[in-house]
Each structure stands twice: as structure tokens, then as C-alpha cells.
């Protein structure tokens, strides 16, 4: 029963971990040899983490409960705009609010939108949410584009502070920040490296917290009911489960995680515009979830990471001049090929869910293991 052991790692997971380890080693080597700027590597880590959050959010909706949400970009965008409108110096509304408080502004917007779209559609069959959400993302984007008196329109919002900008110590670092060992400067860290490193710390904490939160709610009676709803909503109803309530909870939680990614994005890139709400983001996140293994939190994280690897890896290829043409146009083709391979070879994704949704501690009796 090793596959069912909670917390144990399957050979597949070990393989993936090995690959990721090798990639990390390679990237570190690239940094040490000066091939890759440290600040850029840290930026990439931040971007991967952001996609991991988006994928985990969609996984709660689609992977846990089978809800088809085509407006990932909208929830991401609301998170990004929510915090930006409150904190940015270029904000037409307020600006200057501490990012720690503004965070809740972004989350609040996303939660309200999730309830507004979820209430009428989640009572109906899955398809209706899909249809409604398809339009929703564009409605939100075009609203932001046109209502420039509130959102600065196509110009976008500039002057977004760093997340740590008003924190004691972290906000007051002076640059360059030189790290001495025995009188000789060891690291000469420029501002970009320090802020990128802080962003990585921040997003790692967020990803870890979200992952732990999700693991707990997934491997529980709650997650089990959602898994039942996913395969057969009628069945869950006959067993006395209020499927609407369960779906609504999962939908809002998923949307909040997406908004969290948006909040982080704002404070990473320090600029948001309606461009960031393009439907392509939704598409990438869907690919990430399916690629990683629908229904698996780890799979979603791996999928999110893979998407960034493809996006940025192709840029890398262009820079090395290894290809006669720019690699950017190959990006979508690569993604397409990857999907075909996955569907052909591993329809359940790279890391499909392998665990029973049973409260882990209650299996500790040793009877079934």
C-alpha cells in the first residue's frame, strides 16, 4: 500500500524532485558563472511562485470540485488592481495605503466577484459557470481599460511600492548593501538583488502557507465531499451534502488564492495594466493544472513552475542564439506539443493525486497500513 501512505513519496514524485534538483543546480551554476544575473534568477523564482499560486487556485476549483473557471485572469487582475489602487502613487483613487492592508483590498474584490458570479451559476450545472466565466474575464478587463477615472485605464498604474516598503528595517535598507567577511567585501548586493530576494522570501512564505492550508482542507471530509461532487453531484446530494455550499466555498477559496498571486505580482513588477488581464494567462494556468495532474496540489505547483520554465526558457534560447529564429513564437507551439504528449502518454498529468482524501491522523492506527 505504499502508494496510499500519507506523506510518503511515490517513485514518480522522487523522479520529479530529482529533475527539479538538477534544474536548480544548473541555474545556480549559471549564476555563479555569471551567465545569469542573480536578480533575474530571483525574479524568475518569484514569477514561478506566482504561477504556482494561480495553478493551486484553479486546482481547488477544477481539480477538487470540477468547476470550470475561465476567468483566472480576472481574479488575478482584481488582486493585482486591488492592491495597486490602494498603494500606488499613480492611483486615481487613493494610494499610499500600506501594502499589508491593501492586500485585503485585493482579496476582498476577488471574493466579492467570486460570490457574484458563483451564486447564480453554481446552482446550475458545470457548463453555466464555464460560459459565464468566459465572458467575465473580458468584462473585468474592458471595465478596467475604460473606466480610467478609477483605474487609470490603458496607461496602467505606476508607482506601486514594494511589499516591504513601509516595514521597519527591511524598508530602510541602504544600497549597495555590502556583506563583509573579515574586512573583505564578499557580496556586493545591489538594490535589485536585495528587493528580489525579499520578494522571494515573501512569496515562498505565501506559497508554503497556501500549500499547507490546502493540504489540510483537501485531505479531509470537506475535500472528500468535493471529490464526490466532481464525479457525481447528484450522488453527493443524495448523501445529504449541500453541494451548492461546498462548491461556493471551493470557488471562493480558489479565487482568493488567484487574487493572492495578483497582489504579489503587483509588488513584484511594480506596474499593472489591463494587459496583465489578457485571457492568455487563464489559458496558461489551465495548461499548468492539467499538465501537473488535475486534483493534485503538488501537481499544480509543478505545472505552474513548468509554464514559467517554458515561457522564460524560450527567451533564454533566443539569447543564446542557438536558433536561427526568435524562440518566442515557438512558445505556444511548445506548450501545444507538451499538451499532446501529456494527453497521449500521461492523461492524468505528471503528478496525479494518489492519496485518499481521509484525515491523515485517523489512519495512524496501523490497522490498514
Amino acid at each position, binding site marked *: *500500500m505504499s502508494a*496510499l501512505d500519507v506523506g510518503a513519496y511515490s517513485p514518480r514524485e522522487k523522479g520529479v524532485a530529482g529533475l527539479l534538483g538538477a534544474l536548480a543546480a544548473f541555474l545556480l551554476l549559471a549564476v555563479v558563472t555569471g551567465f545569469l544575473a542573480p536578480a533575474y534568477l530571483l525574479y524568475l523564482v518569484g514569477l514561478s511562485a506566482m504561477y504556482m499560486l494561480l495553478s493551486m487556485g484553479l486546482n481547488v476549483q477544477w481539480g477538487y470540485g470540477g468547476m470550470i473557471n475561465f476567468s483566472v485572469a480576472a481574479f488575478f487582475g482584481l488582486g493585482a488592481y486591488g492592491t495597486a489602487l490602494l498603494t500606488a502613487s499613480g492611483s486615481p483613487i487613493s494610494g499610499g495605503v500600506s501594502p499589508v492592508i491593501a492586500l485585503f483590498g485585493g482579496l476582498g474584490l476577488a471574493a466579492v466577484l467570486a460570490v457574484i458570479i458563483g451564486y447564480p451559476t453554481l446552482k446550475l450545472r458545470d457548463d453555466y459557470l464555464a460560459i459565464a466565466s468566459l465572458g467575465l474575464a473580458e468584462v473585468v478587463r474592458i471595465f478596467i481599460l475604460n473606466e480610467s477615472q478609477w483605474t487609470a485605464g490603458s496607461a496602467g498604474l505606476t508607482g506601486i511600492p514594494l511589499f516591504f516598503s513601509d516595514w521597519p528595517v527591511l524598508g530602510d535598507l541602504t544600497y549597495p548593501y555590502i556583506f563583509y567577511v573579515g574586512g573583505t567585501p564578499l557580496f556586493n548586493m545591489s538594490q535589485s538583488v536585495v528587493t528580489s530576494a525579499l520578494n522571494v522570501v515573501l512569496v515562498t512564505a505565501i506559497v508554503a502557507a497556501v500549500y499547507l492550508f490546502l493540504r*489540510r*482542507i483537501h485531505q*479531509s*471530509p*470537506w475535500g*472528500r*465531499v468535493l*471529490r*464526490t461532487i*466532481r*464525479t*457525481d453531484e*447528484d*450522488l*453527493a*446530494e*443524495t*448523501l*445529504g*451534502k*449541500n*453541494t451548492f455550499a*461546498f462548491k461556493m*466555498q471551493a470557488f471562493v*477559496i480558489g479565487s482568493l488564492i488567484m487574487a493572492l498571486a495578483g497582489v504579489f505580482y503587483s509588488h513584484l513588477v511594480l506596474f499593472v495594466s489591463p494587459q496583465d488581464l489578457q485571457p492568455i494567462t487563464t489559458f496558461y494556468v489551465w495548461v499548468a493544472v492539467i499538465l501537473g495532474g488535475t*486534483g493534485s496540489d503538488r501537481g499544480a505547483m509543478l505545472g505552474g513552475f513548468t509554464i514559467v520554465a517554458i515561457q522564460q526558457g524560450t527567451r533564454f534560447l533566443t539569447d543564446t542564439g542557438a536558433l536561427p529564429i526568435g524562440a518566442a513564437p515557438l512558445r505556444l507551439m511548445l506548450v501545444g506539443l507538451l499538451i499532446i504528449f501529456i494527453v497521449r502518454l500521461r492523461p492524468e498529468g505528471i503528478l496525479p*493525486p494518489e492519496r*485518499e*482524501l*481521509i*484525515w491523515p*491522523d*485517523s*489512519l495512524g*492506527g496501523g*490497522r*490498514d497500513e
Partner: protein
Amino acid sequence: MSEQSLVSDGPVLGKEDPVLRAEGLEKRFGGLVATDDASIEVERGTITGLIGPNGAGKSTLFNLVSGFYEPDAGSVAVNGVDVTGQKPHQIADQGMIRTFQTPRKPEGMTVREALLVGPHNQTGESIIPLFTSPDTVEQEERRSLEQAQQMLERFEIGDLATQPATDLSGGQMKLVELARGMMAEPDLLLLDEPVAGVNPVLADKLAGFIEELNEEGITFLIIEHDMNFIMRLADPIIVLNQGSVLVEGPPEAVRSDERVIDAYLGGPSE
């Protein structure tokens, strides 16, 4: 014939302690009348059979009383509580659990996992207690796991507990459905063709299990086309024809009733 007199014309109503009482249920799909003034009562402690020719409205009646269809007219009460127009999950909460004609396969779940969905109002089904009182969740979960294992062993499929629920034979699937229904601790179990596609040996076993559970106080309402199975098990038997109750009575009497034979053969002879 003295047996004929045992068979009532139409449903027997005004039973002493009905778990389920449906009155004057009517459901139309466009111009088609699926059930027309259908009334039934299921007395507590019985195994009540529901038979009738194809298209008589048996499954529609199930869907009406379990809340999957909203009736155009009529009312449904479970344990004396009016549940007309309520959602299926609210009706299930009143103590009536149903199964489906084609077994519902919970994909990606093991058998015991599927069973654990059964119990009502688990603490761990709300998100906050997962963080504030994990101990309660753990205890409940342990209890449910034990109960699930016992239930599976009782139905002689204890070895299937950690198998994927989709890898079962049709008969085993029916047993799992029954076990899952029992996990919800119902007063009344509605079974829709429990032995359709099940081999005779397993069908026999299933009948035995149903009788056992009935002796322990579970009331059953069973739709079944297998006459041997239903006649052996159920008393009374309600015969549905053209959307309403034709007759109701004990199995031997119903079996030889002229009206029932006519209904099955299609229209009154003579």
C-alpha cells in the same frame, strides 16, 4: 378468489406509521404525463416493493420523492415532515437515502473513501473546524473508518476497502452503494433496481443482506424488475401503471391479480 380481496384497488393509505408519505404526485414533461396523482405510503419496518411495466413512472416517482424533480402537484412527507419542493440533500437529512439505477462510480476514490462520504454532518465537512478542532475531526474520522470497515465485512467485501471504487464488478458496486447508504444511518433506503445486472448468486446474497438490515429496523422501498427477487423480499407490493398506483397488496396476491397481469401484458384483455 379470496386472494383477490387482499389486493386493494389503488394505494393503501392511512397506514399507522409511514416513513414516507407521497400524496397526489403529478409530474409532466411537456405533454407527457409521467406520474398522475400518484400516492404511496411506506410503513415503517416494511420492505415495500414498487413494480410496474416499463414507463409506468417508477423512477419518476423516486426522483419526485427524493427531490430531484419538483412535482407539479402533490406533496411528500418523510417521517411526518413535509419536504415538498426541498433540495435532495435536505430530504436526505430527514433520513431517506436513495440509490440510483446505474451505480454511480466515484472516480479516483477507494472503496472506503467512497463509504466515508456517507455519514451526515461530519465536523470535518466545514473548513474552520479543520483548523480549530482537528482532534474532533480525527476522532469522527476514526469512528467512520471503523464503521466503514465493519460494513464492508458485513457485506463480505472487506478485502476491497482500499481498492479503487471504479474497479469493481456490477454486483460489488451495488453492495458498495448499499453500504454507503447505510453509512448515512437512514430510516428509509430507496433502492432503484438493486439486482439489475447482478449474477443470481450475488442477488441472493443481496436479498439476505436486505432482510437482515430490515430486521434491524431499516425500512426499504425497492424498485425491481426481477420478479423472483422482489416477490421473495417485499411485502406489500405496490404496482404502478401509467403514472399512478394500480393496486397494492401482498406478493402472492399481486402476482395473480388480473389487473396486474393485464398491465404487464399491455392493456386490459376481454
